């Protein structure tokens, strides 16, 4: 369970470049919930994910995962609870190392590492089994450098690596945005399969409205560092892409309602 309480973050405070990135975010994502965050550029979606991952210190607020206050934990320590997949398919893997070596690293994430062989026989068997479950035919290429794979294949493996140890929270930062449409659809489907099978709590940032409608249990709409709307339960099940676009439009219109318009409406909305 992820519990965000009154999160505030301002970058470059007191300078002409001051940006209020997160303005009092309160969110409770129950155990096993898959939530998608949508919003325009600069709305604070990725900043929120980075705040949870520990990429910077908060100005105010607290982050709890499964009841533990991790607000003061450094990023590397949070990695024992959090799995991450980034937008860039080349970011989560080491290109020169083989598939098996990359996966062996993720098997031992958060564990003490010695000088013993990471890739002993039983590990290879487990890696082959898990890679086979992706249905991408990569189990026969375990000794190939991961850099020889396509972006979609690498992102699928990154997803497998991020979820290998069943993290308490999975963060997906536009993880299909850099893929071609077919690969993006495959990785999205794989994401849903893994999250459902492992009953993971997940937070996904996406610009794809169809993905936001189809994949998660809950949609969180952000604008200018605030959560402006959430869709869950029955409301989520009936929401369609045009509804989300209309909701964005409504947020934009709301901003245009300045004091002069308010005066106009006050006089004419009889």
């Amino acid at each position: 369970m992820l519990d965000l309480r009154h999160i505030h973050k301002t970058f470059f405070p007191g300078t002409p470049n001051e940006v209020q990135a997160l303005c009092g975010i309160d969110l409770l994502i129950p155990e096993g919930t898959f939530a998608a965050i949508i919003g325009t550029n600069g709305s604070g979606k990725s900043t929120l994910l980075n705040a949870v991952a520990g990429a910077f210190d908060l100005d105010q607020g607290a982050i709890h995962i499964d009841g533990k206050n991790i607000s003061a934990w450094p990023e590397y320590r949070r990695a024992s609870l959090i799995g991450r997949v980034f937008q860039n398919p080349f970011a989560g893997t080491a290109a020169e190392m083989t598939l098996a070596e990359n996966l062996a690293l993720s098997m031992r994430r958060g564990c003490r590492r010695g000088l013993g062989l990471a890739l002993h026989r039983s590990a290879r068997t487990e890696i082959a089994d898990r890679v086979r479950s992706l249905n991408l035919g990569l189990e026969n290429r375990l000794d190939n450098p991961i850099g020889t794979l396509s972006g979609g294949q690498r992102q699928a493996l990154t997803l497998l690596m991020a979820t290998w140890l069943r993290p308490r929270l999975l963060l997906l930062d536009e993880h299909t945005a850099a893929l071609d449409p077919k690969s993006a659809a495959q990785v999205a489907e794989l994401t849903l399969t893994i999250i459902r099978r492992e009953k993971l709590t997940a937070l996904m940032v996406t610009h794809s409205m169809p993905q936001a409608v189809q994949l998660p249990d809950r949609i969180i709409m952000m604008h200018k560092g605030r959560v402006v709307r959430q869709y869950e339960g029955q409301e989520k099940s009936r929401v369609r892409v045009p509804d989300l676009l209309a909701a964005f439009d409504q947020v934009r219109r709301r901003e245009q309602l300045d004091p002069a318009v308010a005066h106009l409406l006050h006089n004419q909305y009889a």
Partner: protein
Amino acid sequence: MKIESRIQGTRMVVQVNGRLDAAWADLLLGTVRDLVREGHHQVRLDASGLEYLSSAGIRSLLKIRRELEAVSGSFGIAPAAPFVQETLRMSGLEALLLVGEEMPADAAEPAAGDNADSGTETSAETVAKTGASPSAVRFEEHILDLLGAVTVTAHAGWRPWQQVLDGACLEVPLSRPRFGLGIGAAGRDAEDIRSRLGDFVAAAGSVAWLPSDGADRPDYLVQNERFLPQLNAIQSLVGEGKFSHLLRFSPAASNACVTLSDLYEQVLRTTRADAAALVCLAEVEGLVGASLARSPGCIQASDQPGEFPELREWLSFCGERVHHQSQVLVVAFFCRDPSHLLAAHLAPVPSRPGLLAHAHAVVLPFRPLPQGVLDLDASVATVFDDNTPLALLHLIDDDRPAVGLGESAFIRGACWCAPIHDLTHITT
């Protein structure tokens, strides 16, 4: 394929050269639809230069014919290349689609952008006059019933932005021939609709309202056999009676349009009244308006929904001129006498000092209207038939200097109107 159009007499001739196949059928259909939107209802297809006609092409021709018939227009192919005649003959569609090249112009059926010639109506029940307004919009006035007038029932169980009190809600029947506007919702009782109250508009047995529970899309009820639509409303203006006039309007020059206040003034001139009501079906040039974003039923004693910035939570303003080229059903009540009993339910129209009005509009995908005198019930039924409302607005006249959006305006349409001869207040 090459498509060219030209006016020939009272008809619009569309000349097609090349292949009319699946790749081009939609383009032809779209081209003809644009012509119909502009008011050209008598269309001939010059197929003498056609080199190939597939079943997809034939289907588009049949679709064009059906859509023109729906607006009392006509469609035919003349002249046609021999192979086109042969193809249609073999398909059994010769009689439907081919017309003789020397077919006389249909003088009784004015066509295509032909309003300039449509000066008179010969029907015993109607008298038509034409005249260009200052805004280059041509009005045709048709008298429906010289004694036509409407009685208005006004109910103000709620005044912005007070709390909705128990008993403020009233069941408002909105079956034919009633028309009206207000704030309400469909539901079992006042408690059931408290969190969904939204702006509504009703005419000819069709009722649309915008629930304010976050659905963001209008819902609607249509009268059918024994089903009579009604809403629970906290505020309503409902008219009942006979319309005295039908105004048809269309642009006399390119880009001309009629503003809502132009329409009010024209109706008041036509009906020679100080207070009138209208129901209008029109193609939209642009709408300016607002709608409830949260239900007034949710107002708490500590809320100040009428004040900025809290107003943002309760009202949604369009922010720009919206729904260009969509179809709209507008219901409006208006007067130019501030002492009129109706004035208490209206708001000033800033761009026309002295005029007071209240107008709601439901927006639907565009469907062309037949020309001439129309029946309101049939026209509204056609517009709602298999057509989902897109939006619903309380129309606003935005006269802010420099940045104002202006007022709502229409390109062409039909406006049924009547003077208001009586007003009843209902208190709850």
